[in-house]
């Protein structure tokens, strides 16, 4: 893929958090380690491209999003936006224009909304602080437009409400409206439709796809839901314990996964219709993965049905397995 068309690039991105040992660790003087939330990720998002980032709970998806939106500082690697190194940028003179161009839809709709602000003020806030409107009628129009795009109709009904006066899915849509109102060039959407029913979900996804089609907006769509990733994305990147284990087109990852973890993920995705066989629970065994105790060698080896000796010692590199398709497994050649 041509570099010039990339709006976003992550190079060997790493985010480690110092560990908080339990009482026993402190008493026994065990060494404090690190939670390796993000542990060396290379990823690019093209202009107007939709990339889905999938992975299990705790695999580092939100942390990647927080680095991109400058809410978390990486401990290693680089964050490039249109080729410009943003890793250590802090000044408000660079960050304000950056925030206008890059917005995040937060995973936790309960935490993301200020409980003392009305829906109107919540959606209006970035428009005011980024000085995107000239007068109040413009402001009202932008807020109204964004709420309607997020499926909150008639939008005026929601203006004076406080977050606790909304249902869960309505809150989530206020968070979405906040990001849409800014009209950014890149949205990092962290599980943006998790609390929405299929119909409203379809409506929101259509809005995001339209923004890409008409305004060439790029989207990093974080989700734990493989069918949803397939539905919206051009490419899917699969994260496991802080590392990308596979990346490819949406169809390749969904229908022809190569990495054993992606295969397990696909096999565990239940049939959506009512004839689901509930005895077909996933085959993955082994200890619960934890970013605080990343296994040596291939980090998937304790749960991998195909693991062999080498996997316990050496970490496999990401290798090309087809056009635009990479997998990090010793079995892929």
């Amino acid at each position, binding site marked *: 893929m041509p570099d010039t068309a990339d709006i976003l690039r992550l190079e060997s991105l790493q985010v480690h958090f110092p560990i908080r040992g339990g009482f026993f660790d402190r008493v026994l003087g065990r060494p404090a380690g690190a939670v390796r939330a993000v542990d060396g990720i290379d990823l690019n998002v093209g202009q107007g491209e939709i990339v889905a980032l999938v992975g299990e709970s705790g695999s580092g998806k939100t942390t990647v999003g927080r680095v991109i939106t400058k809410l978390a500082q990486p401990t290693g690697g680089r964050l490039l936006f249109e080729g410009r190194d943003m890793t250590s940028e802090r000044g408000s003179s660079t960050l304000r224009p950056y925030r206008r161009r890059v917005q995040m839809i937060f995973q936790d709709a309960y935490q993301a909304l200020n409980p003392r602000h009305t829906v109107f003020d919540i959606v209006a806030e970035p428009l005011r602080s980024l000085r995107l409107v000239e007068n109040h009628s413009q402001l009202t129009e932008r807020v109204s437009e964004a709420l309607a795009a997020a499926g909150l109709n008639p939008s005026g009904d929601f203006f004076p409400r406080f977050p606790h006066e909304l249902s869960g899915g309505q809150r989530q849509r206020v968070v979405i409206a906040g990001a849409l109102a800014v009209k950014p060039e890149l949205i990092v959407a962290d599980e943006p439709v998790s*609390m929405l029913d*299929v119909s409203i979900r379809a409506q929101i996804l259509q809005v995001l796809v339209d923004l890409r089609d008409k305004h060439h907006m790029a989207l990093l769509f974080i989700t734990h839901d493989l069918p949803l990733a397939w539905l919206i994305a051009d490419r899917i990147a699969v994260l496991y314990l802080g590392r990308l284990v596979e990346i490819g087109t949406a169809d390749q990852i969904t229908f022809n996964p190569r990495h054993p973890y992606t295969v397990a993920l696909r096999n*565990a995705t*239940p049939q959506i*219709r009512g004839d689901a066989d*509930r005895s077909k629970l996933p085959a993955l065994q082994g200890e619960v993965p934890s970013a605080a105790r990343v296994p040596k060698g291939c980090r998937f080896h304790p749960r991998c049905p195909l693991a062999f000796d080498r996997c316990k010692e050496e970490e496999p590199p990401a290798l090309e397995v087809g056009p635009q398709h990479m997998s990090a497994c010793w079995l892929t050649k």
Partner: protein
Amino acid sequence: MTEPSRSTALLLNVDGLSVDYKLKGLSSRAIDGVSFALRAGEAVALVGESGSGKTTTAMAIAGLLSPNARVSEGEVRYRGERLPINDDVAMRPHRWSETSVVFQGAMNALNPVHRITKQIAEPCILRLGLSRSEATVRARELLELVGIPADRGAAYPHELSGGMRQRVMIAMALACRPSIVIGDEPTTALDVITQAQILKLFGDLRSKLNLALILITHDLSVVAETCDRVMIMYAGRIVEDGTVADVFAQPKHPYTQLLIESIPNPANGKRMIRPIPGDPPNLVNRPSGCAFHSRCPSAMTVCATEVPSLDEVRRGRVACHLHRPLTQEDKVAIHA
């Protein structure tokens, strides 16, 4: 769909429950005449559009409605006893050990200044009368049960991922061995593998301890895997109720039909899903007749004026003028 449970005692009876919210002097009815029963060991799903009243139903049953809400009609009985759902203090002895709730957005309900293990241990000390060290042991076990290494219990909530916090809330809800768990989107933040582990845990508790489950979710595959029965809500009313197999294979209510049709299915290459046209109805100025009539492809003249009641039909219940309720003779014929 599951093996018969040991006892099917009636645990919960929700009868004609209606809740109004007051906003700026205007009252809106969020749920209207909700009635259903729940037996020990049973798992019932509550499914419906965003804003259709699922959380309000759950909160009303647990006696946890917000201050601007009022139960205007109906009652809730637990093992035959009427619950004081309008009185927060009087409800306290019933929470945690009888009915516990995994709140929607639970990931934000944890106390930010206490370590995880301590927060799970707290209700065990208060309700089960455990000592602090016993409660800590139980908390560590519960963490492992929901797939979080017990050592991570030393962390503060902000140090855990969204899905990990959600699982901590599930562990807390299970801590005092309740007879009913109401899970309000309890697995929305979880990937399929972690989710399957939690659903299996619920399944084990159902078969071993006869736990009853009310599962609120948008994920119909979770419903299919976990529940025996499903109730569909639209604009504050239950519009369909039946076994999971019946409702998924032969949905009766037009809303249910559209809902099931709009599920994306990678297996047949159906990519972009089609939303149900139109907007959810305004709860302050409720439409007359059937609340779905402006969006319903089968609407008839009667639908604009008469509210369809939730009637028993051959298999289950449905509120739609297209479906004729069972007559006395039908009922006799079925039972004969």
